């Protein structure tokens, strides 16, 4: 088991954003997490990545309990996160953004970072990854000069540069047009390998259903269904959550 989320609950103030959710992810899986707005999907993602501490429950990564770990430590042990709101480093070129991620493993120790100067290999690798996600032409541009679609690709390239075993993608398709979204979805599907799993949070159901073999559905912070995509989509409770009460 690559990732095991057990009975996680998150409360902010008096509000329960996520209630008692469990989720298992194996190596080589592509799992879509869906649910209406306000379902707590992003909170779940933030718990897995370490941006939010759960009120109760635990998270195991590769059998190791990482519940109390900071996000950078999780990243250095095989996790990568691409956020919904793209956050490029604005003073770095796209290639430098990716190169920094390529060198992440040496960033755990400042001493190691201080004694290493050469970054050509990482810049080279950064360019390769930009090529892989299809934006090599903008490698030397600054993030402010490229369109949103490019930045979405950059997030993906940066996540790949961390050489993760598990990638968390939060709404990578949001804001893209239909053609771009389809292209991006294909790219995401092609990134899943035997040693790399992806969890995808996405509102674009058309694409999620198309590329994800398994879906996890939550609504108002609670578990609704988890299983093969077709079965999940046939579940009346899932349809009701999406279409409103009247659809039952």
């Amino acid at each position, binding site marked *: 088991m690559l990732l095991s989320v057990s009975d996680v609950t998150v409360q902010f103030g008096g509000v329960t954003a996520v209630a008692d959710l469990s989720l298992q992810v194996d190596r080589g899986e592509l799992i879509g997490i869906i649910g209406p707005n306000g379902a707590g999907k992003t909170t779940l993602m933030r718990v897995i990545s370490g941006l939010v501490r759960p009120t109760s429950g635990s998270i195991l990564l590769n059998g190791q309990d990482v519940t109390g770990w900071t996000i*950078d430590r999780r*990243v250095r042990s095989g996790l990568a996160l691409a956020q919904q709101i793209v956050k*490029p*480093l604005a003073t770095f070129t796209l290639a430098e953004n990716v190169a*920094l991620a390529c060198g992440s493993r040496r*960033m755990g120790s*400042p001493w190691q970072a201080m004694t290493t100067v050469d970054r050509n290999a990482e810049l080279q690798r950064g360019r390769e990854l930009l090529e892989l996600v299809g934006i090599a032409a903008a490698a030397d541009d600054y993030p402010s000069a490229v369109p949103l679609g490019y930045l979405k690709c950059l997030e993906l390239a940066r996540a790949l540069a961390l050489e993760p075993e598990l990638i968390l993608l939060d709404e990578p398709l949001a804001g893209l047009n239909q053609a771009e979204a389809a292209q991006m979805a294909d790219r995401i599907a092609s990134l899943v390998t035997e040693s790399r799993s992806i969890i995808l949070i996405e509102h674009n159901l058309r694409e999620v259903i198309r590329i994800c073999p398994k879906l996890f559905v939550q609504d108002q912070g609670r578990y609704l269904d988890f299983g093969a995509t077709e079965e999940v989509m046939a579940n009346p409770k899932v349809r009701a959550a999406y279409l409103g009460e009247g659809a039952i």
Partner: protein
Amino acid sequence: MAYEVILLTTMAIMVLFALSLNVITGFCGQVSLGHAAFYGIGAYVGAMLTKAGWPLLIALLPAAGIAGLIGFFVGLMSLRVRHDFLAITTMGIAFLFVGFVRKQEWLGGEIGISGIPAFGFGRIGLLVVALACAGLFAAVTVYLKRSWMGFGFDSIADDEDTARILGIDVPRFKLWAFVIGTAGAGVAGALYAHHVRYIGPDSFGFVESVTVLAMVIIGGIGSVWAVALAAAVLSVLPLWFQFIDDYKLLIYGLLVFAVMRFSPNGIAGALQSFRRRLR
């Protein structure tokens, strides 16, 4: 001749002092409004030791070490606060330092420490030492900037949340910046103490903290050469032009304001955008 030596020594010490803050504020993006406290710590440690018979060159090491050690603890505390809160906390540290020293009889209290022994190799010797320290520190920071540590600092200054997502251990990097920067200020302080040969609590107040921050900012946050240049020019300007002395702080103030108002990236930033426009 003697006057030029004094001028150049002042300049070298201020360059070192400004470059040390540049590591914390310029490289790592952590605004400190209390850097003079570490300059003061270095000055007091250096002065006490040479008065106890240590040679200055050896006393520089504990001056750096103790300033860096206290810098480490201040850095540790600063990890809990960010941005505006950090600026105010470091300002508080500076007031704490001055307030503490003022009340310590063994540190000379209000009166300060006078009769600090002159450097064994004379004024020129001190100038050589100061130039060497400033040069060495500049070289170290240029190297740092090029290393992966500098890469990491850049990302933290840019957006520390994103830096964490890219696997950078942000707190440890910040601590290193604090230790390197405050140790550098310690050396600068010890040199200063032997340059003027009298120190008191008022030599290391808030105005000194702001002055050095002004040098870093007017030079252009992060750029080693521009900061060194700004520090060199701004530190001797009032000495060169005695008539300016009365207006020294007024000009500082207006300059800092004008740079922020019209070119927030400092002189280096202005040059860069000018060069970009030429292209």
